[in-house]
């Protein structure tokens, strides 16, 4: 470690998003994802990839067929520009590091090994459930902001498959009515969704040297814990609110600087309540526009935070805020300024992408327009 790190202060160097590659239920590419979330059209269909007879739920947001995760990850890394030689190798004697968020079981090792073989990268796998990818982004941003790295590659992948579908169904986490309804009365839970996403994060100098153009800037980040329960969030959202304030501190910004919140919003009863409480703590006078794009692309588990970061970047670049689909009836305990019915023009400012996971893990990422 170099002795130049900041503690919780504004980054010394800008952390830029230099490329994004995406595969989601909306198809290939950031444009397809952006079009899908801005259309507000949920991508949930009956699962054909495997049998769902005997389960409570039968829908997910999947792409066609049964793609291989390693193939999808290599494709999005190429699409993001991660496989082109950087102008300056930070580690000339070592393979370039890839922070890779995957479900933490035996399959992670072989997938990471295949990605390594086909790309020449050195994957380091993050397995922390729904904050795996955003934790990787935070680590990557810290490495760039402190000058340790010129660029860091982050990727994440989850494809809907029988084992996780079965265990989420057994846990009664999946919505039986086939829709994800974040922050709405009557919400029944989440639905799973495919995602493979790669993001190239780099310094301004690295981006300039290769003649690239930034898609966005990671202005702030933070990771916190609730210290509350195995799997339930703190009902007051204290850890999540602390993550948002930590990200704001790093960005040198006040809550009023946030113009959009891409919420975790999985559609779970307790999770949405805790998140609404956290947002009320951060924005006591009322929130900026809020939506959960999980309502259309589903919950991609370890890849969810990177998919939502990509959707947030896409929305900022389009100047339009996606709707919170599936919403039916106000929940008085979720007093948020939800984007409903149709996309809303994006106001100038930062976008906040927040995620929460089992174990009381929370992350906040602040995204600025390029």
């Amino acid at each position: 470690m170099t002795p130049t790190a900041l503690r919780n202060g504004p980054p010394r160097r800008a952390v830029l998003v230099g490329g994004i590659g995406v595969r989601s239920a909306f198809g290939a590419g950031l444009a397809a994802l952006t079009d899908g979330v801005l259309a507000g059209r949920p991508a949930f269909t009956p699962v054909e990839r495997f049998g769902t007879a005997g389960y409570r739920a039968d829908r997910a947001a999947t792409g066609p067929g049964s793609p291989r995760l390693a193939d999808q990850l290599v494709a999005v890394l190429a699409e993001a520009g991660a496989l082109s030689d950087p102008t300056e190798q930070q580690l000339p004697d070592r393979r370039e590091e890839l922070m890779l968020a995957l479900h933490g079981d035996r399959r992670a090792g072989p997938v990471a090994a295949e990605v390594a073989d086909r790309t020449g990268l050195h994957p380091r796998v993050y397995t922390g459930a729904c904050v795996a990818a955003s934790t990787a982004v935070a680590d990557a941003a810290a490495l760039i902001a402190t000058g340790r790295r010129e660029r860091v590659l982050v990727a994440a992948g989850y494809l809907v498959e029988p084992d996780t579908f079965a265990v989420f169904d057994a846990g009664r986490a999946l919505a039986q009515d086939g829709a994800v309804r974040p922050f709405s009365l009557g919400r029944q839970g989440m639905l799973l969704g495919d995602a493979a996403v790669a993001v190239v994060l780099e310094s301004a100098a690295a981006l300039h040297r290769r003649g690239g153009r930034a898609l966005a800037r990671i202005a702030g980040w933070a990771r916190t814990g609730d210290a509350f329960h195995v799997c339930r969030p703190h009902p007051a959202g204290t850890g999540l609110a602390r993550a948002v304030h930590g990200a704001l501190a790093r960005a040198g910004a006040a809550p009023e600087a946030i113009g959009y919140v891409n919420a975790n919003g999985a559609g779970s009863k307790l999770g949405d309540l805790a998140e609404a409480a956290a947002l009320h703590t951060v924005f006591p006078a009322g929130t900026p526009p809020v939506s959960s794009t999980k309502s259309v692309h589903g919950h991609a588990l370890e890849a969810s935070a990177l998919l939502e970061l990509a959707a947030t970047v896409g929305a900022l670049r389009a100047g339009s805020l996606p709707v919170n689909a599936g919403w039916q009836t106000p929940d008085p305990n979720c007093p948020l300024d939800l984007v409903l019915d149709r996309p809303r023009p994006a106001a100038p400012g930062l976008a906040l992408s927040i995620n929460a996971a089992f174990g009381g893990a929370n992350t906040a990422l602040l995204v600025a327009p390029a």
Partner: protein
Amino acid sequence: MTAPTSVPAPVPAPVPAPVAAPASAPVADPAPSAPPVPDVGPVAVPRLSAGPLRVLARARWPERPADELPAIAGFVESAFSPLVAETAERCLRAHHGPPPATGAPRTALLLASPSGDTGTADALARATANGQRVAPLLFFQSNPNAVLGHLAARWQLDGPVVALGPGFDDERELHERAALLIEDGDAEQVLVVTAVQGPPDHATAVLLAP
């Protein structure tokens, strides 16, 4: 991902009353005059790292032949979570005494396991392959964050909760990740646990500070 309300969630015993700030407590002072998009130039004086992290306490499992893992309420089928919990407990007790670690510096929990909870994965795979009902409790322990949540609640440690898999193959790399969490400001100490489910099962834990 959070627990649905309709299934009894495992409750680690004992879970002390949380000491985290209540909702009404200020989390940070807002700065209304801050610009909407900040200048990202050099605006702060770097805080120097003090070099390698200090080891405040260490533990391992097994410590001796016939060492045993206490069960944890709500965790079933697999020894992975008990393995992580017991090894972490030994390390934290060596430094803090019995839980909770009231007043401890903000502590991150970082778990590294190359193949994760193979016992839970195998139980799940068996059930789906045979068309059997999947035990609902497997949902809660189906990712490594769950046991970290158990530790965080029991010890009242509210730093980052991080789980890592393959690719972090030596202690130096894990210490670098721990140092990054500290230097980045999200934690003041880091409990690093490594766990491999065998046979034989083995795990280590180390509490690190600047």
